[in-house]
């Protein structure tokens, strides 16, 4: 993780209503200097609205937005040291690449020679040397993307907001840009607040992932935490594939589901509390039936490229398992779990 400095943006109890619809329901979030923070959640959960509040295009209905400790909820967007890379780039079609990037500096009446130097430096940072005179409407999606990033970064903001910046690119270019964005962030050393609905993108780029659903934060953590220790069923379901099983916590480090007790590493639940257990498909190990408590029959096996996806039917349910070994359909098998691979979550009320 990049070394993080002080808290730069603080959201305290932010809510937002559009007409009578509550879109954000009390968002508390600290964002630090140098952090690559990702807001992850399904479409319509309020990610863009949070960005627009931080950028200044929407006012929160309730709550405080602090920038370096000062409430900026009423400061207009053009007075904030924050810049945005918009979802559809929003490049100015009547300006060429150079003038698009120079727009912010021209507005601030910076000296022409300084502008020239900064724009050139920024264009080479995003790999667009020699594109100065090009018409932005004739660039490819990836190139437009780079212009949008350069146009925002050239103003040397404290925070850069990126609203699903890669969603319009094809899969290969997308992968490339993910790596590049991460590199750029480390190079310029500022806070990036990145929005995506793609969990893989979020996990591979971020220092911190904020998982959202329905206007509420579900979990904040490092990508590894989010993947390995989902706090509730929504996070487990949204991040990667998983088997989610209802059970009871017998006591610290002992959980019971599907009729058997298992050792685990989770603590701090009430005795006999109803919980849910997440088992990642790749964490379930297949053994001979007599070596395990959980036994079932393989009812399907599908090749997925790197692994096979098996469905094992037990008396209680069907388990999804990822394995690189070949197993015949119809075979009786046993399933065993390491205690680190059993993730216990609070039960969500639906």
């Amino acid at each position, binding site marked *: 993780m990049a070394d993080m400095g002080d808290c730069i943006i603080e959201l305290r109890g932010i809510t937002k209503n559009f007409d009578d619809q509550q879109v954000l329901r009390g968002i508390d979030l600290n964002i630090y200097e140098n952090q690559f923070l990702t807001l992850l959640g399904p479409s319509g959960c309020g990610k863009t609205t949070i960005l627009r509040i931080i950028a*200044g295009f929407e006012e929160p209905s309730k709550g405080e937005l602090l920038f370096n400790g000062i409430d900026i909820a009423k400061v*207009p967007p*053009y007075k904030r040291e924050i810049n*945005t890379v918009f979802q559809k780039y929003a490049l100015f079609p*009547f300006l060429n690449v150079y003038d698009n990037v120079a*727009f912010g500096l021209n507005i601030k009446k910076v000296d022409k020679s300084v502008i020239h130097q900064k724009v050139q430096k920024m264009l080479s940072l995003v790999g667009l040397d020699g594109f100065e005179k090009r018409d932005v409407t*004739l660039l490819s999606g990836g190139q437009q993307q780079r212009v949008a990033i350069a146009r*925002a970064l050239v103003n040397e903001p404290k925070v850069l907001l990126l609203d699903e910046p890669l969603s319009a690119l094809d899969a290969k270019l997308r992968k490339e840009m993910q790596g590049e964005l991460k590199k750029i962030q480390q190079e310029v050393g500022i806070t990036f607040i990145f929005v995506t609905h793609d969990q893989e993108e979020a996990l591979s780029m971020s220092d911190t992932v904020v998982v959202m659903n329905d206007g509420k934060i579900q979990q904040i953590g490092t990508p590894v935490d989010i993947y390995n220790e989902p706090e509730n069923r929504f996070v487990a379901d949204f991040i990667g594939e998983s088997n989610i099983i209802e059970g009871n916590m017998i006591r610290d480090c002992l959980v019971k589901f599907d009729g058997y007790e298992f050792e685990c590493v989770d603590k701090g639940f009430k005795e006999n509390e109803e919980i849910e257990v997440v088992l990642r498909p790749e964490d379930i190990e297949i053994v001979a039936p007599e070596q395990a408590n959980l036994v079932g029959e393989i009812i399907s096996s599908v090749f997925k490229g790197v692994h096979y996806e098996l469905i094992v039917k037990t008396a209680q349910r069907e388990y999804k398992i990822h394995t690189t070994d070949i197993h015949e359909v119809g075979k009786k098998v046993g399933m065993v779990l390491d205690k680190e691979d059993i993730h216990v979550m609070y039960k969500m009320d639906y």
Partner: protein
Amino acid sequence: MKKRKKGFPILYIVLCFLFFYVPILVMMVFSFNSSRSLTRFEGFSLHWYEQLLADSEIMGAVSVSVSIAALATIISTVLGTLTAIGLSKTRRVLKEWLLNVNNLPIMNPDIVTAIGLMILFSSMKFDKGYMTMLLSHVLFCTPYVITSVYPKVRQFDDSLANAAMDLGASPFQTLIKVIVPCIKPGIFAGMLLAFTMSFDDFVVSYFVTGNGVQNISIIVYNMTKRTNPTINALSTIVIVVILVALLIGNVVPMLANKKKNGRLKEEER
């Protein structure tokens, strides 16, 4: 079958053009006539143009027409553009209502607008003359500007305005540096319409003017009561001015397009 049909439409178009343009051509030719006759061409001369330039009454009318058209164009373009931008941000019901109201002055017969304005100015005890004429021209030009700017404003992507403000532009800077360049074709078309509408207006001007202030159309109307070939010279000049305005309006966007296409091709290479 196809071939047989082809001859007639061409003949039809030629007849139409002859019908429209022969009178104008005749008038233009006779403006260079050396005699007073409107039926016999007796030799080329610039006599009537000299007369025209020497006639201070006519020259006064020319300057009224030109200055009113210029001022009315500027004022109605600014008003109409701001109104169109404002309209696009208005609630739907109010917007549709306002757009319909905006069409009224366009569809109204000029005479109705003219008499309405005349009564208005009289009842408010306005001193009729240059100001009332200018106000009236602004009034009937603005709807044309709104009508030609509004579609461009609707096409405008709001995220561009957001981007400009995000980069530090105040709302006013955003208007000038981003919104106006994007809707420029609409503004330009509106300006041209406003200019031609104002420059060749007769009916409204005739009813709202007073105190001896006359524009070109009014003076031409008054002159037709006597035969005076000077009006041929004047009309020729008016036609040339309007022709030039139309040419600018059609050729400039065409050239701009060509330039852009040229660049496109260059980049493909």
